[in-house]
């Protein structure tokens, strides 16, 4: 009888234990893993704790040991904090605390990406990304900059105050209060440190200047495949339509550095065959770019300058940006900050406003090294065997033993590609990477100084500290100065230097210097009454240094911005809002006549004729409902494919596709285009007209499918979305009703576009409008998680509250008040 009871006891007991174990384990599910379901669903510990009440009261009193004085934070109705501190370090301490409170998971995750640590939290499937970033020298670079900044007492104290603030919040967290994504992926926040800020800034450098880590190798393939002469036609150095940042005709000073071209360049560089293929696991979007401009009071209705900026980056939730006002006795500043870094990155203060776009200059190059043997202990340099140091990068992997990367370090930098980390055709090559981001930089000091800048001279001093990623800093002041300067550590290069892998056995191909700061392109108060940049080449060919291949520089947004700003007068902030949302496609304006000219309409069938008519009647805008934008894009892409596909098909190695202007500019000059011929049909010589007809026929089939699935409208066709950083659809915002796209001022593409829109009118009391595709609270369980997305898509802006403490205390829109004290 006893056994009859013991058996069910043991059975039910085992079932209980078994169920608990199953619910306490991350189970595999379709390529990823479930959370620990028992923990995740537990209402007192798991995700339900992150379901923030819609009526949450964000007010409170916080006691923090490291504060020197009292800090008041007023949160407005959009959950933007207005920080009023008695000293600067307290302000950054509280900024760190607030970043952590609202964006902790995101800011830590970004440093896991940058530092090559994703395998630690996600598992082996992210090892390729981790290896790539480690070997590119991301951790190494962050160490260099950190060592440099440790020597700067003011910045060291700033970084530490910020970091202490982040940690104060992390320490205050109860286990059930950790952000949602930690619970989903099952790990815990760790302590923050200034080093993590430097890692995050390395990620921004990679995002904005790291394209060469993939493209230099692919460009080398293309040069070897096509031969240098044809390569030059596909990837030119100049484009006729260019309207540079510094107006054409500007005189430049005599250069301080005249880079010497190596003597053996034709054989050793342009003709040399180094096959390579590599694809970064995370490739920076080639159109990471932005618009910024400032108009002087002579062109505005108020007589005061207006400054505008919209940086185009990957569109993500939580957003890269966090809106904040910082008010201390030394400065009063408002704008977009990076969760993970102190200060305001793009914004304005009581006296000036500033914004940035990416310079796009090539500051990352590869050198082909010759090692004595596979131990990589000695390499040939200037005729002698030189000792290489070694650097170990240990990658922890969830549930697996560590992976150790052994990297040889050379005069150029780390050997990224070697026998252990290679690509399909590296044939045992050793490629060292040299990158300005890995040299000691000043990190956020430029922004720290801009936050406090009072005038043009302060702006010039602040920006002169900036090294990487190179930016176009636009500026406007209440005293009616406007300016733009392209600043960064730019390499003084000879023509085509670093576009391909360079020989690394001696110093002749090495960088010969950094261009002196006052020779960088800049312009102040030009006669035309405005300054602007849109990632185009900063200068024309009379500038004494080589900028890089033209395909690094988007051409068309700059043309339309300058055209519009030239036409506009009596400008108001509202006019600027419309300009940032402008969907006119200047590329299509130039390309449509070329396309139509090459089509014989009599040879078209009814369907093809219908689509050609749509293009003919199109208003050249990429508005949400425009079918013409979709049809034009399909026709033109199809034409490019007809022209080049046959030439590319025979290469086994990845090669970059020529940029949009290449075909257009050639066809605008010349109706006979050599690449038009299909090399697979030796008995027939195709012309561009043949290609155009073939393109229309092929594209029409595709267009009919789009029409059948009701996605011929441009907005539906391109389908803009804002993805969660983990790309989980339920945490993302999909199918957003917004037009725009490539070549347009409103550069909103499927997953990429204006990540922050800002308009600052420098009247006595500053009038500013902002919006970004996200929300202030990074918690997917908060109603403030994506609260700006709909306004952003609709082109609506929020008027910024930029008030002093006394006004904040009684302002009706300040909904919450948090006091921070040290006791």
């Amino acid at each position, binding site marked *: 009888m006893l056994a009859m009871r013991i058996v069910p*006891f043991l059975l039910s007991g085992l079932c209980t234990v078994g169920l608990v174990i199953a619910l306490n384990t991350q189970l595999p599910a379709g390529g990823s893993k479930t959370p620990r379901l028992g923990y995740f669903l537990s209402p007192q510990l798991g995700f339900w704790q992150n379901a923030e009440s819609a009526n949450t009261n964000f007010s409170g009193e916080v006691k923090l040991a490291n504060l020197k004085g009292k800090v008041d934070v007023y949160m407005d109705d959009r959950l933007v904090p207005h920080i009023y501190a008695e000293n600067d370090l307290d302000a950054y301490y509280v900024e760190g605390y607030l970043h952590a409170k609202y964006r902790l998971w995101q800011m830590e995750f970004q440093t896991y990406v940058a530092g090559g640590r994703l395998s630690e939290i996600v598992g082996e499937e992210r090892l390729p990304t981790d290896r790539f970033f480690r070997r590119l020298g991301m951790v190494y670079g962050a160490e260099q900059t950190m060592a440099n900044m440790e020597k700067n007492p003011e910045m060291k104290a700033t970084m530490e105050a910020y970091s202490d603030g982040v940690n104060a919040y992390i320490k205050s967290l109860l286990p059930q209060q950790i952000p949602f994504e930690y619970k989903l992926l099952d790990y815990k926040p760790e302590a923050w440190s200034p080093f993590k800020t430097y890692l995050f800034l390395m990620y921004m450098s990679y995002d904005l200047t790291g394209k060469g880590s993939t493209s230099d190798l692919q460009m080398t393939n293309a040069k070897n495949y096509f031969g240098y002469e044809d390569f030059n036609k596909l990837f030119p150095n100049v484009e006729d339509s260019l309207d540079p940042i510094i107006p054409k005709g500007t005189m430049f000073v005599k250069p301080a550095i005249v880079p010497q071209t190596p003597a053996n360049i034709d054989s050793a560089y342009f003709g040399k065959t180094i096959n390579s293929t590599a694809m970064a696991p995370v490739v920076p979007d080639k159109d990471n770019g932005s618009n910024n401009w400032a108009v002087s009071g002579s062109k505005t209705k108020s007589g005061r300058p207006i400054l505008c900026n919209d940086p185009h980056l990957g569109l993500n939730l939580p957003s890269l940006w966090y809106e904040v006002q910082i008010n201390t006795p030394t400065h009063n500043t408002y704008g977009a900050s990076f969760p993970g870094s102190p200060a305001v990155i793009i914004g304005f203060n009581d006296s000036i406003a500033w914004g940035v776009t990416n310079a796009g200059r090539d500051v990352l190059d590869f050198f082909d090294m010759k090692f004595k043997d596979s131990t990589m202990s000695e390499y040939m340099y200037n005729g002698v065997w030189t000792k290489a140091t070694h650097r170990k990068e240990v990658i922890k992997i969830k549930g697996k033993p560590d992976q150790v990367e052994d990297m040889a370090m050379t005069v150029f930098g780390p050997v990224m590609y070697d026998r252990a980390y290679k690509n399909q055709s590296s044939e045992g090559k050793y490629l060292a990477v040299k990158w300005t981001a890995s040299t000691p930089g000043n990190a956020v000091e430029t922004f720290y100084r801009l936050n406090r800048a009072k005038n043009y001279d302060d702006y010039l001093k602040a920006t002169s500290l900036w090294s990487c990623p190179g930016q176009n800093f636009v500026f406007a002041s209440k005293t009616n100065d406007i300016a733009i300067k392209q600043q960064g550590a730019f390499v003084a290069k000879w023509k085509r230097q670093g576009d391909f892998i360079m020989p690394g056995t001696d110093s002749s191909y090495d960088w010969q210097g950094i261009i002196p700061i006052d020779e960088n392109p800049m312009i102040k108060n030009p006669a035309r009454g405005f300054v602007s940049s849109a990632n185009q080449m900063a200068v024309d060919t009379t500038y004494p240094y080589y900028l890089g291949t033209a395909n690094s520089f988007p051409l068309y947004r700059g043309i339309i911005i300058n055209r519009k700003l030239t036409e506009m007068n009596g400008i108001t902030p509202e006019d600027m809002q419309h300009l940032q949302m402008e969907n006119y496609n200047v590329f299509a304006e130039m390309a449509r006549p070329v396309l139509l000219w090459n089509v014989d309409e009599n040879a078209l069938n009814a369907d093809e004729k219908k689509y050609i008519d749509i293009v003919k009647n199109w208003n050249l805008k990429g508005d949400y409902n425009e079918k013409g934008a979709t049809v034009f894009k399909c026709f033109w892409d199809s034409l490019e494919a007809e022209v080049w596909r046959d030439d590319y098909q025979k290469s086994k190695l990845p090669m970059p596709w020529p940029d949009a202007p290449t075909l257009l500019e050639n066809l605008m000059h010349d109706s006979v285009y050599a690449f038009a011929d299909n090399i697979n049909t030796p008995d027939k010589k195709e012309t561009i007209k043949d290609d155009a007809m073939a393109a229309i026929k092929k594209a029409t089939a595709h267009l009919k499918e789009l029409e059948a699935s009701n996605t011929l409208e441009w907005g539906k066709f391109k389908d803009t979305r804002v993805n969660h950083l983990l790309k989980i659809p339920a945490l993302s915002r999909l199918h957003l009703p917004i037009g725009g796209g490539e070549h347009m001022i409103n550069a909103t593409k499927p997953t990429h576009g204006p990540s922050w829109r800002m308009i600052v009118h420098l009247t006595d009391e500053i009038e500013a409008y902002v919006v970004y595709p996200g929300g202030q609270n990074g918690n997917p369980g908060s109603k403030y998680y994506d609260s700006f997305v709909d306004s952003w898509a609709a082109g609506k802006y929020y008027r910024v509250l930029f008030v002093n403490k006394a006004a904040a205390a009684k302002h009706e829109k300040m909904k919450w008040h948090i006091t921070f004290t040290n006791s």
Partner: protein
Amino acid sequence: MKIITAIVITAFLAYVLGIYSTLPWWSFAISSFVVSVAIHQKPGKSFLAGFLGLFLLWAGLALIKDVANEHILSTKVAQILPLGGSYIVLILVTGIVGGLVSGLAALAGSYLRKSK
């Protein structure tokens, strides 16, 4: 009724253990087991009491959070898990998961007492 007493005490103890957030989420399995040993019932009733105690606690706590949150997070989680985006199903699943663990522990408790 005995079963109601058992349900209430099961839920109460689980709630109290849940306040100590450094304890593992399954701590209530032990308290449900103990309750079932202390308030002895037939195996079927013990299971039911253990199940309902946690089902009501977890589903109830989830419901309170969810209503205040206006279903923002539950609708997202119910797509991730995937439960068709239904917050009602997610609340029920939450209750059932807690209930099953508790019910099985209570069942074991019932058999233990019997075997004495």
